């Protein structure tokens, strides 16, 4: 099966640099140094002999069920080998969905009150392409200078973009309202856009060169996808937990408020708390060059937040931000159950997780 597939492969791009030299008398001198192979990526047999690949497999502590041949396939980007039987496109598609599912359920169950924008950026921080690139680099994956069948199967292979290529961020997307004057609201991002709230670019040609970031991200996704196929759901989840969710992120640093006082007032109205009032808790050096005021925001007798600043207004704004963050970052605990835990055998009955009304809209 493997051999018959291998024989159907062709080189995706005719690499003219390795072509044979033809002299005037039409005598063909074969280029012995770089033999022209009919394959665009290393053969599955080569995977068994690569020290780099075996070391990478061991370094990731992947189960033995995941064969080296598949591991080699996760390292071949569609831009290196356009044949879908030999590149990682399908594995990356599957793995990407699994990663974003586990990240999303972790974020939604652990921080049920996160506003949509912050949820998008938290998801981006955990499994955005930038982070996946960092993860792949920290796993010790190296890139091949250029793709080809003679390359060590332990290297990540893709067609590199030429330096100075303009990355077209706002190219054609899959959204139906592609006209620029339409407002891209938050709720439409849920429907049309990807898991980070970004527009999904239109399908590109598979052999088009791509950035290192995308190639590395494709590799991490493909590893999760191949784990799912060979070793099962639990192993794929374990990989996501160990390598993606275990990374550090201070979610409170993702917020950017525009009008925190107004938002807090609306929140108190909605939750039927008393109107928030700012009170000075302590101050020093009012007439000096560097005064400090400590202001608390109170709703009735309850202190919602506190902030310090060099002016009364700034201290009040900081206090409002602290109060809003305290509300949005409510968490039932770090060990809250997530829906995917129900898939394991003998799981106890599902208790509904806390679901919030949603963010404050004013």
């Amino acid at each position, binding site marked *: 099966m493997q051999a018959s597939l291998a024989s159907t492969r062709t080189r995706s791009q005719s690499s003219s640099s390795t072509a044979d030299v033809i002299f005037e008398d039409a005598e063909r001198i074969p280029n012995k140094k770089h033999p022209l192979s009919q394959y665009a990526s290393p053969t599955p047999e080569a995977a068994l002999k690569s020290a780099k690949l075996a*070391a990478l497999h061991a370094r990731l*502590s992947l189960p033995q069920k995941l064969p080296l041949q598949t591991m080699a396939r996760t390292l071949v980007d569609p831009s290196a080998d356009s044949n879908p039987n030999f590149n990682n496109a399908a594995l990356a598609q599957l793995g990407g969905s699994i990663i974003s599912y586990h990240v999303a359920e972790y974020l939604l169950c652990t921080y049920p009150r996160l506003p949509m924008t912050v949820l998008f950026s938290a998801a981006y921080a955990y499994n955005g392409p930038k982070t996946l690139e960092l993860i792949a680099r920290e796993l010790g994956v190296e890139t091949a200078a250029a793709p080809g069948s003679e390359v060590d199967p332990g290297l990540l292979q893709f067609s590199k973009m030429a330096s100075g290529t303009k990355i077209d961020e706002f190219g054609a997307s899959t959204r139906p309202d592609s006209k620029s004057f339409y407002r891209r609201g938050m709720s439409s991002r849920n429907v049309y856009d990807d898991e980070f709230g970004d527009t999904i670019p239109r399908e590109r040609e598979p052999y088009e060169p791509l950035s290192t970031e995308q190639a590395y991200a494709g590799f991490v996704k493909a590893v999760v996808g191949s784990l799912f196929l060979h070793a099962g759901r639990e192993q794929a989840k374990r990989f996501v937990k160990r390598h993606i969710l275990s990374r550090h*992120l201070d979610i409170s640093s993702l917020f950017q408020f525009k009008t925190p006082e107004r938002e807090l007032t609306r929140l108190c109205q909605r939750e039927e708390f008393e109107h928030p009032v700012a009170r000075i808790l302590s101050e020093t050096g009012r007439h000096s060059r560097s005064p400090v005021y400590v202001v608390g925001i109170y709703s009735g007798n309850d202190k919602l937040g506190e902030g310090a600043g060099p002016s009364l207004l700034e201290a009040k704004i900081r206090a409002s931000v602290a109060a809003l963050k305290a509300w949005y970052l409510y968490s039932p605990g770090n060990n809250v159950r997530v829906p995917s835990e129900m898939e394991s055998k003998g799981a106890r009955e599902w208790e509904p997780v806390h679901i919030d009304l949603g963010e404050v809209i004013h």
Partner: protein
Amino acid sequence: MVVQGLRKVTVGQNGVGSFILQCKRLDFHYCDWMGSSKGMNSFIANSLQKFAAAHPQIEINVSPRPRKHPVIIGHYINGREKAVCVRNLQKEQILKKAELLRDASGEKLKKVTKPVTSIKESVRGVWSPYHGGPLTV
């Protein structure tokens, strides 16, 4: 837009969740002729296989380096490398050097002055002069 999200990336903490050995490759260079490689040749013949089997996550390359002293070069995930010359050493001493390279992080050596370094906030918080009762002297 009420509140906006800022884009950041998560920070890896090696050892939390998973541990990745930082040494990814060890190159062993020897010479067949020179006396300084005697221990190295004996190490390659007798101990290297066991060492390699114990550390599957390290790629091991053995190659001759004629008319030169034997050397072990470690390549690390952060892109740096570390070389140790093992001329005239016995095979047990060479094993120690290989273990030293295996355990190294690849970072430049620097003096550690603080007992704890952390990217997390202090649990106790930072002392504030504006809180707590006034100080009576």
